[in-house]
């Protein structure tokens, strides 16, 4: 719920019912709040403020929109001091038509109190108790009930709480009051959860005049990559992930992220990755009213020694391959550039899993079960396709199949290779015999049991007169299921 200033001036208060408010003010206009949209826009707004300080947070215990905390430790000198920074940030927003108030203090609680009840001030460290003493108790971020209770006892100023017996305060007003008081005065730690990961190494560029073209953004990214590479080189580091924050003048941040398979600080490589990533943006890119700042940050850092390129280096090609994977996945997406890896199972479609080609290889490979002796096809259909199979006798190799409306007669076949379902990974209950399942009673309870025969597959290799070799399986043992179903799962070379 929110009220504008005109309504507040006429005596409408938060917490009233609509009928009561209409009684006070017949011309009151009510509209539904689109909360998710406001939350989303405010999150963008908060991200955009990271152009002032890298640590921006929306207080977790407050409303999801409306309040913003910036940790300006070590950045205020860029704006010419704390007071100048506050004036510049608040002025910037006021110029855009927001009603905004702010305060600077050494603790989040004290800054909140200043922003709400004495805006525009900068508190020196240690002066919190003195300044806050004159402020009303609501400045302690208490809910309305707690503040009302304090006022009933005649405690209307924060200063009146100083020096009182803490145990009595806690007993009467709850532990929240003491926590808030301690946080405001700096006796208790209050942690912020920054909206964006804090980058140790980042470079940025501000524009006097907003830019709009994606080509200009990418050109800047290449320049920034060069500067970042110098920094990383000086620190002896390489990074595996790079974020490009593009700050629009209208409070939106566009974030582009590219990853590298191995730690790098090659500026040309980083620049190229961003241009490929930008091609994937397509219509998503929208500069709005212009872009006034771009920041490039390096993430997932690891030590990277200087390497000698050229004459005496031995090149096994793996580094070039990793670079290729980076370029491909930045343009096509990480899910489009894959590498196969064997997994510890005999279920054919789970035995080989695809993972992004740039994903780190596990340092110690897991011991794997040996590959099956029986031949495996060169191609596997992503979904086994149902087929019609004619076998001469049950459990005999298939003699004929119809697949995709074409019939194939088999001249040779081998099998079956029986692959049981992996009960150890399933969630069904185990029973030793089918009779035990039937004795369980109702069909619902019986359905929760693992049924040995129903999930078992018998695989056959079958070859037709043309020499095409197929991998097909029958689902379910013939004694356990009414009609066995057949599927085609793969094709041999």
């Amino acid at each position, binding site marked *: 719920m929110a009220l504008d200033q005109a309504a507040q001036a006429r005596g409408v208060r938060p917490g009233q019912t609509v009928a009561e408010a209409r009684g006070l003010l017949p011309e009151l206009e009510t509209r539904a709040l689109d909360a998710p949209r406001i939350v989303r826009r405010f999150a963008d707004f908060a991200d955009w403020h990271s152009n002032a300080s890298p640590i921006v947070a929306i207080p977790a215990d407050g409303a999801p929109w409306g309040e913003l905390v910036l940790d300006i430790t070590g950045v205020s000198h860029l704006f010419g001091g704390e007071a100048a920074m506050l004036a510049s940030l608040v002025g910037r927003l006021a110029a855009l038509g927001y009603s905004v108030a702010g305060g600077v203090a050494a603790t989040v609680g004290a800054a909140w109190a200043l922003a709400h009840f004495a805006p525009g001030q900068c508190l020196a460290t240690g002066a919190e108790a003195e300044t806050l003493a004159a402020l009303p108790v609501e400045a302690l971020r208490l809910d309305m009930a707690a503040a009302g209770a304090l006022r009933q006892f005649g405690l209307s100023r924060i200063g009146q709480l100083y020096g009182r017996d803490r145990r009595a305060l806690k007993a009467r007003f709850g532990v929240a009051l003491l926590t808030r008081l301690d946080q405001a005065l700096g006796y208790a730690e209050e942690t912020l959860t920054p909206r964006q990961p804090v980058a140790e190494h980042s470079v940025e560029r501000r524009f006097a005049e907003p830019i709009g073209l994606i080509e200009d953004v990418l050109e800047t990214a290449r320049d920034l990559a060069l500067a970042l590479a110098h920094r990383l080189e000086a620190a002896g580091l390489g990074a595996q992930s790079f974020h490009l924050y593009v700050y629009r003048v209208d409070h939106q941040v566009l974030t582009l992220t590219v990853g590298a398979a191995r730690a790098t600080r090659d500026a040309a490589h980083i620049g190229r990755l961003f241009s490929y990533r930008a091609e994937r943006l397509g219509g998503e890119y929208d500069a709005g009213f212009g872009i006034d700042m771009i920041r490039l940050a390096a993430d997932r850092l690891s030590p990277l020694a200087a390497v000698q390129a050229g004459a005496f280096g031995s*090149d*096994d*090609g*793996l*580094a*070039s*391959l990793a*670079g*290729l*994977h980076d*370029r*491909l996945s930045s*343009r*096509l997406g990480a*899910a*489009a*550039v*894959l*590498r*196969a*890896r*064997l997994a510890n199972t005999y279920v*054919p479609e789970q*035995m*080989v899993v*695809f993972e992004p*080609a740039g994903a780190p*290889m596990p340092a110690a490979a897991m011991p794997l079960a040996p*590959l*099956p002796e029986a*031949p*495996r*096809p*060169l*191609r*596997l*259909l*992503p*979904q086994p396709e149902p087929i019609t199979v004619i076998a001469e006798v049950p459990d005999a190799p298939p003699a004929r199949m119809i697949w995709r409306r*074409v019939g194939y007669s088999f*001249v*040779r*076949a*081998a099998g079956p290779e029986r692959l049981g379902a992996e009960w150890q990974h399933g969630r069904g209950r185990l029973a030793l015999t089918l009779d035990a399942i039937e004795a369980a009673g109702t069909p619902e309870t019986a359905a929760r049991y693992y049924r040995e025969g129903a999930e078992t597959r018998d695989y056959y*290799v*079958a*070859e037709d*007169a*043309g*020499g*095409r*070799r197929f991998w097909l399986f029958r689902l379910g043992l013939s004694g356990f299921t009414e009609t066995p179903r057949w599927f085609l799962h*793969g*094709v*041999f*070379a």
Partner: protein
Amino acid sequence: MPGSRRHRLDALDSLRHTLARLETRPLLAAPVAAPTQLLAPPPGHVHEVCADSPVAAGAALGFALAQAQGLRREGRPGLVIAQLRGEAQELGLPYGAGFAGFGLAPEAVTLIRAETIAELLWALEEALACRAVAAVIAELARPHKALDFTASRRLALRSAASGGSVFLTRYGPERTASAARYRWRVMPRPSRPAPWDARAPGGPRWQITLEKGRLSAAPADAPEGETYLVDWTEHGFVIAAPGGRKRPRSVGGAALPRALPAALGHRLSQAG
């Protein structure tokens, strides 16, 4: 006039050189080393691998993979298979557990699943530009308008410049114009007999026609359009006699270790 004749000859000669450079093939007179292995093409060319229908997709990929793994060298271990995402169900995905028969570890191959043909072509060129990629296999279930002569010409120039090879697998009887240096037609044939079971299918046997291009400079050695019936074995390609009698013609081919596919790259690096 002798002067003008000399001039004309010079012009012809320079023209021949220009053509050779454009065509990315050696001068007609230049000697070409005889291939050391059966059906082994030199690296750096575009190949088309044609099969009659997508049902034979296994044989087409098998042949392309067999050729591609033979092109791996020290410092050039990369193999790339590119597919369109929409065609995966029709053709089937390459299955890592089946790579062991080709002396490859599942991790050795990078699979690209592109959304559009334009992305696929871009990925092919990008992969070719990488000097660690030995071969790129592009699988296309049907003809695409974007993959025309110009596109294949671009691929040919790229592969000649980098030394990586391209294999385009295609299906159907029609042949479109392309700048591919070699065109192979692969047909699966009834497999060779399995060792202990006469009724079971055995290892792969293909009938391979070299429809375009020559493997050797001397036309008598390997004429265009020759048909081979070969088995794919641990020793590479072997000429198969339909009666089951085999005449191994593989020269100097190292046996592909079946149980330890990952060791192949290592052995190659020592041999090379």
